[in-house]
């Protein structure tokens, strides 16, 4: 029992703790967002009373509220999808597969937290990395520590791998995959080397979680503060009356400032959490393809799935030649991985990792985080 934990096991443990803490923070965020949402709706209603909106323009104005509405819808969607997945998982009795992290029961507050965490694009549509039910599942995958999805929560095992390698959470759910990778390696030195690669991936994920925890904490602080400010503003605006033209110049400026505050606070609901964003998104992929020569573009487009998931996996992971060789070898023998990237054993090799490195280099050049 007193066996010393390996570097990898320690990193895994820390990643699990960080994920737990992140989940906890997201739940906390959810509680606070519901108050903010109410305050925002309240102040919007007041503004609508004051605004002298001609009938024909009403539709345009309605659209302005769209982001917030979209956010609310996203939250409801997440809750719904999660419930579906949960029922399925219970039916299959396979929820325990994976890293053994307990499946979190999801309420509307947590769903709101998740909706915020993954963000709603300012155009009003869900952010592309997370569109539709699949995206919701990706969010849920790591929320449940990966156990639900990886254990057959309504998704094929192959695509589960991709989703997990997507935003974050590879570390936790990937435990089984890692273990199968290590069996392939024979010598002690090689095993240690491969373990070190996985440890760095774990540590990278820990850092992503840590960044998320920091941002979530800052976000919660602001949501609390601004909910209070908006509530005070509502009380004050009520004293102004509803006729804009009858107001003093100071009152008019105040109204303008509160509109700005409303918009700024709305962003607290819809701006995504940086640490939990995909490290290499579809947009990054499109930018890469636009930049590359024909030959590479063709390669990237043919292996889009593999490129995106591997780029996410290897983001900021420095690999020397020996690391690459070993990683390629272990992945080549991993059926689950191969089926998820739709490649055969013969097709996948060390040169594919070099291409991933090329894709990542392009990303590093264009973006600092």
């Amino acid at each position: 029992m007193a066996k010393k934990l390996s570097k990898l096991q320690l990193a895994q443990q820390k990643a699990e703790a960080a994920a737990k803490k992140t989940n906890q923070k997201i739940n906390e965020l959810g509680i606070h967002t519901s108050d903010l949402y109410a305050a925002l709706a309240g102040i919007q209603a007041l503004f609508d009373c004051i605004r002298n909106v001609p009938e024909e323009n009403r539709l345009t104005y309605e659209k302005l509220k769209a982001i917030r509405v979209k956010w609310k819808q996203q939250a409801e969607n997440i809750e719904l999808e999660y419930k579906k997945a949960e029922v399925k998982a219970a039916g299959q009795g396979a929820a325990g597969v994976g890293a053994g992290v307990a499946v979190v029961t999801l309420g509307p507050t947590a769903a709101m937290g998740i909706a915020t965490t993954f963000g709603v694009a300012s155009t009003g549509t869900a952010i592309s990395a997370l569109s539709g039910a699949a995206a919701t599942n990706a969010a849920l995958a790591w929320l449940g520590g990966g156990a639900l999805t990886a254990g057959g929560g309504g998704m094929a095992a192959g695509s589960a791998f991709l989703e997990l390698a997507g935003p974050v959470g590879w570390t936790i759910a990937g435990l089984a995959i890692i273990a199968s990778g290590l069996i392939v390696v024979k010598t002690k030195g090689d095993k240690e080397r491969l373990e070190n690669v996985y440890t760095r991936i774990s540590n990278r994920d820990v850092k992503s979680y840590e960044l998320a925890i920091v941002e979530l904490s800052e976000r919660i602080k602001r949501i609390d503060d601004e909910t209070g400010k908006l509530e005070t503003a509502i009380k004050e605006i009520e004293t102004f009356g509803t006729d804009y033209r009858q107001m003093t110049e100071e009152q008019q400026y105040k109204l303008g400032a509160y509109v700005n505050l409303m918009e700024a606070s709305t962003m607290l609901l819809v701006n995504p959490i940086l640490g939990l964003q995909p490290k290499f998104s579809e947009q990054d992929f499109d930018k890469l393809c636009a930049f590359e020569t024909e030959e590479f573009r063709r390669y990237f487009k043919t292996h889009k799935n593999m490129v995106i998931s591997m780029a996410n996996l290897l983001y900021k992971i420095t690999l020397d030649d020996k690391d690459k060789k070993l990683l390629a070898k272990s992945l080549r023998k991993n059926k689950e991985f191969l089926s998820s990237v739709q490649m055969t054993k013969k097709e996948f090799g060390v040169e594919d990792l070099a291409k991933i490195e090329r894709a990542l280099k392009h990303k590093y050049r264009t973006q600092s985080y």
Partner: protein
Amino acid sequence: MSNTNKYKSDVILDLSIDDDGFGFATSIDDALVQAEAELVVLNETVESIKKLKPQCDKLDYILAASSGALCGIIDIFLVGKPGESPLGDITDKWFANRTMDFAKLCHPDKKEFNSLDSALRFLEKEFKVPYDQTGLGDAGRAVFDMNAKNHHFKSLAHNPSLLGLFFSILDQFSNTSHFISDGQLISLQQADDKWEVRGGNVPSKLFCGFVNWFGHLMSDVSGSSAKAGNRGMGIPSPLWTWTNDIIAIKAKLGLSVADTDKVINELALEIFEKGYDTRFQTAQAIPVFLNELLVRFIYAVRRLYRYFTETPKAERSFKLMWKKCEPFSNPTVKRMLTVAHGTFCLIDAGEAVGRAFVGGGGTFNVVEFVLRLNVVGVGRFAISLYGETKRAISYGHAKRTSDFAAKEITIVENYIEGLKILSVKYDDARLLTFIADFKKSGAYIEAFGKSAQLAELRNVPANRVLKSKADIDRYFGGK
């Protein structure tokens, strides 16, 4: 309603999860401080590998080898072998002087001794022991081959080693005398009829025993009085008395003494009889010590020169200078020492082999070889080699740790990048004061400006930010 309660309990359940022993920062500033500290540690780990690897350049190697060669030549010409050793003469004299000093120190009136002879006579009387039989009479001489020339070696209590001390105390307490002869441990009972160890109780007797042992060794180190004048037999070198120890220990434990033990013991006895004693061993240590000093000096001088040429005046300090030049705890100077002592041993052993063949008239004369081989040099070289091996092994471990740390740096730096982005994104404390600003008279336009800046900071699309009075009018007036 019941649903809401259910969710609330879920939330509370989740909140009760702690950090599992890991601490996570929750403010950007704390996280930045932590991350920077992490980066410092990682950089130090990467740097630490440098401390394990020798940074010798070609000139360092050349100078170290030259120092070894120079000292090797000194060893050949000035140490040589017992009896024909200029440095040996100096050490003999030095030991004689120390013996006289010691005699003066022990004399109740602090009498000045003019000759070694009188000092020795005084010391032998002062530190009498029961195990000082030089010959055991004619019979003993015949049976055990004990004589004045070899009894310092054969008599265990005359050995300057821990076992020597043990047998000295034993002999003094039990009035015996132990010696090694022909591979056997011989014990002589009732060695001295008039003997009685001084002291009233056991601790004081032990103390007297120890003082007697030491004092008697001092009286013998420069040669016993009988032979005074023509070098005489000193006490054996501690680097050779272990051959006695092996036989004594084996005999006490009831183990049979191997032939090799006997052969080596006889060799050690033979070289002792030829004058290879503590005094000669000390003479051998001189070129080795000189080599050590020279190399460390060369190292320090070269680094000192480099320090003064490369460090700008403003940055100079004694601490930094010491760090850069101290010739003690770094692998570079240790590597130089390995080279220097290796060269020394090569030259010394080469000469010894040559002389052994010459001395043996074509066949290898082991005694000649051992007399000329500098054991101190060989020992010092062995220590260097041991250190090199140890460093090579620990370098392997450290290299792996350092490589890992170097790769971790990318991750931590990326995290810091992320934190910096957050610190810009959440730098809104100054802007959020706009509501308080409204309370100040006439500051409302400025306060409104802040609100617009806040909206921009939060990435509100430009067309939705109200930037001027006209924008406000348009928003509320529908114009």
